[in-house]
Structure formats: structure tokens, C-alpha cells
């Protein structure tokens, strides 16, 4: 899945909305962990905007009247506010998740969905992007809810330093989710990458968004022995470039 160099060349196509919806979603996921790409997208978008500005025409006066009439009937969106509690939430959830699973499965599912929903707000840079992020987050929520509802869903937790983490998995649903709290903030250009541990061989399972607290792992469990977390350069790697900072066995 080392698509980072390839994905990076999509900054131009992305800036002029020339990607298919699936590619756009994939690129935006990459963008969330690649500050250099985000900067380039901003610059190329600004350059493209100049091409558009040069096309200015004199608008018909009627348009102004219609727009002003319409906005009188349109409610404005509230500003984005930092999701306080996003990081605290899992720390409350995880210990309970570990001790009292599956009795609190439903509660955990709801809290987990809230965490995943929070991801939608975390990344968006404008309303348009928020809409697509929200769609991705809804998908994640659905996947997460299905996972939590699986009759064979199980959980394992680990602590390292001040951080705690849990993995929820189901052999039946063949999916896994990762939840964490208190992982150290990484310097720019670094990202946490998740892996399935296939008997010692690490299989890429997605990047944890900066400041992110939870995500569904990409791909299927497919008999993996557990999951690992490593620190990788932005955009992720195809193979772990260092020792895992966390290992969670499926036991």
C-alpha cells in the first residue's frame, strides 16, 4: 500500500477537481496525514483560482436580487469548534470495554461511534470537504456498529507510557477497529500507521489521522494474529520502518 509517492502526484488533479469520487476520497485520506501535500494543494488551488478570476464577467443585476432573496431563507452553518472530549472519551471507554465487555457493548458502540463521528469534524477544511468526510465517517460508524454488534466481537487492550489502546475484532465480520487515547503527538511529517500482524509479517491497515482516536482498520482480519502500530513518514509505508510502538494480539 505504499501508494504515497503515486498519490502525491495527484495534488494537481485534486486541485482542479479532476479526480473520480473514489480517488478523491482516497487522496483526501492521504492528505489528512501529509502536510506537504496539503500545502501544495492549497498553492495549486490558489493558482487555479487565478485562472478562474481572469474569466470575470459583468453579472446581470437580476442575479443579485435572486441571491439576496434566497439567502434570507437560508440558515447559516455554525463554525467548526474543536471537539473537546474527543481524546478523553476513549480513556473512559477503554477500561470498561476491557473489563465489562460484552455487557457494555452497546454503550461502547455508541461512544465509539461518537469518536468516529468526531473524525469528520477533525479534518475538514471547508463545508464541501466536511460533507465528504461526514460520508466517510458515516461509513466508518456503520462498519463500527456492525463490528460491535457481531456475536463474536472481542477486545484486547494495552497500555504504554501514558497511552492506552484497544482493538476490537470479529472473526465472523472479519474486521477490526482500533481505539486509543494519549498517544504522544508526533512531529510534522510523521504519522501512526496500523498493521495487521500476519504471523510476524506486517500488513498495512491504514493511517491514524493526526490527533485521531479511533478508526476501522483497512482490509480484513483474515486470520491475523493481532495488530501493531508504528511511526511512519507522512503518507505511510508499505513495510514498518521501525519497531512497533504498540502490539495488540487477538487474544
Amino acid at each position, binding site marked *: 500500500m505504499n501508494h504515497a509517492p503515486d498519490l502525491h502526484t495527484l495534488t494537481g488533479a485534486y486541485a482542479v477537481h479532476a479526480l473520480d469520487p473514489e480517488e478523491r476520497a482516497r487522496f483526501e485520506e492521504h492528505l489528512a496525514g501529509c502536510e506537504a501535500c496539503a500545502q501544495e494543494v492549497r498553492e495549486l488551488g490558489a493558482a487555479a483560482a487565478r485562472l478562474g*478570476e481572469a474569466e470575470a464577467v*459583468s453579472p446581470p443585476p437580476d*442575479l443579485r436580487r435572486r441571491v439576496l432573496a434566497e439567502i434570507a431563507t437560508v440558515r447559516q452553518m455554525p463554525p467548526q469548534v474543536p471537539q473537546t472530549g474527543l481524546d478523553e472519551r476513549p480513556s473512559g471507554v477503554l477500561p470498561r470495554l476491557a473489563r465489562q465487555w460484552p455487557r457494555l457493548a452497546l454503550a461502547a458502540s455508541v461512544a465509539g461511534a461518537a469518536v468516529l463521528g468526531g473524525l469528520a469534524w477533525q479534518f475538514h477544511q471547508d463545508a*464541501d470537504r466536511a460533507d465528504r468526510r461526514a460520508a466517510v465517517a458515516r461509513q466508518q460508524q456503520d462498519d463500527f456498529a456492525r463490528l460491535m454488534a457481531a456475536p463474536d466481537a472481542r477486545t484486547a487492550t494495552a497500555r504504554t507510557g501514558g497511552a492506552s489502546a484497544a482493538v476490537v475484532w470479529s472473526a465472523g465480520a472479519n474486521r477490526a477497529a482500533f481505539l486509543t487515547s494519549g498517544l504522544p503527538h508526533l512531529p510534522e511529517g510523521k504519522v501512526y500507521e496500523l498493521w495487521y500482524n500476519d504471523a510476524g509479517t506486517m500488513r498495512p491497515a491504514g493511517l491514524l489521522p493526526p490527533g485521531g482516536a479511533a478508526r476501522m482498520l483497512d482490509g480484513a482480519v483474515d486470520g491475523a494474529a493481532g495488530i501493531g502500530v508504528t511511526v511512519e513518514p507522512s503518507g505511510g509505508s508499505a513495510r514498518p520502518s521501525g519497531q512497533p510502538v504498540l502490539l495488540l494480539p487477538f487474544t
Partner: protein
Amino acid sequence: MSEVVHLAGPSRRGPGLEELVGRVSRGDQQAFEQVYDAVVGPVLGLVRRILRDPAQSEEVAQEVMVELWRTAARYDRDKGTVMAWVMTLAHRRAVDRVRSAQAAADREQKAAALGHSTAFDEVAEQVESRLEREQVRRCLRGLTQLQRESVNLAYYRGCTYREVAELLGVPLGTVKTRLRDGLIRLRDCLGVTA
């Protein structure tokens, strides 16, 4: 900020626009009218360049302006100027319209019928606008032919890069990189900072 950028339109990109959008986000309709007057010409012009059809273009321009009103609170000045933000909204809306099949059929038909003549096709006659246009043209001339064609098809016609590759008969990877290095060259030529 370079001289060319200053010449290109201080009244549109002046420091006031960001402040005004802040007021719009708090529901200030008067501020909205000022922002409207500053951006609607470029918005409509770009949308028309992409869609051709005057009625559809006005419809989309109206959607863009209402979206500006609705989402003003989500504008983040760290991410770029108001003008760049609004033009991005406008471009995406126009491209979405192009890609809906029904609209595409209408567009081809009406564009063929109408050609370039429209009731409001007059170019805004401000000096700053003409200078901006000349600068953009000069910078476009500075691209290689493949870069220019890729940027033209993607930006002004709303093609996906796959469609661009098909139209130009070149590999996908080539279009990806030509779009990127073409825009990088434009960015540098136009003195864009973000």
C-alpha cells in the same frame, strides 16, 4: 506580495474581504452584499466558461453565492484568500454540474445552439481585470503544450484526468504529472502564495 498580484486587483483581494466574510458568518447581510459584489463577476465568469449555458451558469453562480452565505463560518483564512476559497467552490459546483449526465446533454445542445453570444457576455471593463487576464494568458503561454492542454481540459472544461488522457491520447500517469507540474509553473508565474 509581488507587484503583479497588486496590479491584478487590490480591490478584490484587499484585506477587507476576509474581514467581511467574518461579518457574514455572523449573519451580516450588508457585509454579504459587499462580498457578493467583489466575487460574483469572477464566479459567474468561471462557471460560464465551464458550462457555456447562460441560464445554467446563473443558476450555479447563485448556488455558489448561497453556499458562501451558508458556510461563511467555515472559511479558514489560514487555508487561503476568500477569493481562492470562493473560486474553488465555484469550480467544484460547475464541475459537478458538468458531470451529471443530464446536464451534460443539455449543455452540449444549448452550447451548440447559442455559441458564444449571450446577454451578459461583456467582459468587465476594469483595467485590473484586463491586466489579470493578460497575466494569466502570458503564464498559460509559458506552459508546454501538453501542460496547457491538460490544464485547459481539466480546469476550463471540467474533465477528469482520465477523460483528459483519453482526449489527448496520452497515458494517465502523464496527465497526472502534467497537471501537477503545469499548475506549479502557473503558481510560480502568477506569484501565488498560499
